Every structure is written in structure tokens, then in C-alpha cells.
């Protein structure tokens, strides 16, 4: 699971109002090198919740992202590379996503988060 996907996931438990971002429990992180695409990054940037991405990348062991970001920073190659690395190249292979409100864990196995709810959570 890339951090891009983590940035798009929120707790789907019934009644939860504060379900984003999900906290990350790391068991195994894998780095997969992917070709850098500037257009893609520029396109994604406005859609990303930056603080959640920074927090998540730090949990995964990557501390290079700046605390705050604005679109003018996309002109910097160095920034783009860091953004690319955090968003696309870091994968949570094994671990869990945790609902920030209830503490309920959604397992992540082989890079796939399981968001299926139990009957009483729907």
C-alpha cells in the first residue's frame, strides 16, 4: 500500500466522525523504485492532505518531507523527488491501519489493506 492510497483512506466504521488519517502500524516497509513523473506529481499535489502524508512517511521511516508544502515548491526538483519517494515508492507491506477514533485495526497484508467491516460496525 502506497502512501497515496493511505492518503485516500479513512475509517468507514459507523458513527465515526474523525476517521482521517488512519494511524499506521508498521511491521514491514518495502521501497519500490518507480520512474518519476512530474505531471503526475503536479496533478496529485492539490489532492493530497499534506500533514497526513508527512506523518505517515515519518512512521514509515522517511523523514525528508517538509512539515508544510505549497504548490510553488513543485518547481524544485529536490522537493519533487522527495514527494515522489514518499507518495509512490514507500509501501506498507505488512502492518495495520488504525482508526484514530475507535482504535480498530484494519490489517494490511502483502500490501493490501482490508477495510471490510464486521456486522456491528456497518
Amino acid at each position: 500500500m502506497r502512501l497515496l492510497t493511505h492518503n485516500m483512506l479513512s475509517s468507514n466504521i459507523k458513527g465515526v466522525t474523525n476517521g482521517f488519517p488512519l494511524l499506521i502500524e508498521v511491521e514491514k516497509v518495502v521501497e519500490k523504485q518507480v520512474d518519476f513523473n512530474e505531471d503526475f506529481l503536479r496533478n496529485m499535489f492539490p489532492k493530497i492532505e499534506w500533514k497526513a502524508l508527512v506523518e505517515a512517511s515519518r512512521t514509515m521511516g522517511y523523514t525528508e518531507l517538509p512539515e508544510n508544502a505549497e504548490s510553488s515548491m513543485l518547481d524544485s526538483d529536490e522537493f519533487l523527488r522527495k514527494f515522489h519517494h514518499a507518495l509512490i515508492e514507500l509501501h506498507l507491506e505488512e502492518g495495520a491501519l488504525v482508526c484514530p477514533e475507535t482504535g480498530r485495526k484494519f490489517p494490511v497484508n502483502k500490501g493490501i489493506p482490508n477495510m471490510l467491516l464486521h456486522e456491528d460496525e456497518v
Partner: protein
Amino acid sequence: MLSRTAQIRLVSSHPEVYDPCDDSFALVDALLADRANLLEHHPSICMEVGCGSGYVIASLALMLGKESSDCYFIATDINPHAVGVTRKTMEAHGCHADLVTTDIASGLEKRLAGLVDVMVVNPPYVPTPEYEVGQFGIASAWAGGENGRSVIDKILPVADKLLSDKGWLYLVTLTANNPSEICLQMMKKGYASRIVLQRSTDEESLHIIKLWRNLDTQLEVC
């Protein structure tokens, strides 16, 4: 030569997962026929709901080719085995999609709202008794309840929420699902539609519908 669609020999399988069949091939054929438009469309986010074996999402990623390095592919399935199979299928084809085991788009709806540029859905469309709908395992691949519409009718409002202004939805339906009524319902929500492919097999008649927001209509209403 680079194949534009997934290859059956590279598609993974599992006893609890729906293997690619006529409906999968029809959807991929419809996408292939629209390939030039899809490329020109420059989608940033493409999503499949109900990825099954991964045949369709892999084909979509392949047919968008090199250009797809600027596209984010995401796929979901309610059946965890299906998601596992899709992962292997994508890997075998050298493609990547982020996969989530979930019911339609549950968990993704809030953040992905208005962001999906292309959505492809081959839903469980077979008319069955209601109790067969939503059972885990392979039956979730076809059980569609009354008129085969139970899951389709759950998916349509989610698609409406997730699709971007320029978003396109490709949906596989049977005659029994009443595709014209689906188009009419969506028209009331401001969508234009077209049957992009029709195919009759011994068993069933498939209609692949393409839906998109008709922004002109919305302006007229205002």
C-alpha cells in the same frame, strides 16, 4: 510486442475467484475500442470496482501504456481472495495498482470524492434471490438480487460521488438489468450515456454502458 491487454496465461486464479469470461472480455474490448479517447482524456486516477482476477484493471493499465506512468490505478473487491489474485495478475504483467479489500469503495469515498477520472465496473449482475447477494466467496462475483440490480444500484451513487467532472464510467450490464432504465436514472443526475458495446452469447446479452457528466445539461438546469 507489447500486448495491449492482459494475457490469460498470466492471469492468476483461485477457486473462490471469478475467472475472466465473456463479460470481462467484452468490457476490455469496449475499453480498447475507446482507447484513443482514453489516452486523449489523460486520466490521473483510474479505478476498478470488483477487480476479480485482475484481468480488466491489468488490461486498462497496459492499454494506457507508457502514458499510464502518470496515472494512479486503484482497484477494490469485496472478496479478499480476488484482491490477492489481482495482485499476482498485476505483478505478472509488470503493472501496478493499489488494491483495497472493501465493499465497493467503503473507506475511500470521502477522500476520493470527485477525483476518479475513469471507473470500470463489471458488477455482479445475475438475477438471483436477494439472500445470495453480498455473500463472501465466489458468489459475490455474480449474485445481483432482483433483476440483478442490487449491487449495481449500490454502485451507481458511489460512482456519482467519486467521478470527477470529466469522469467516465464503464458499466457491464445484462438486458435483465434494464440498461435503458439505468441510463434514464443517471440522466436525471446529469449524466449522458451510450451503449458502447453489445454482445450476445448463448447465455446472455451484454450491454456495456459508458456514462459521463453532461455538463451542458447541468448549465441548462441552472
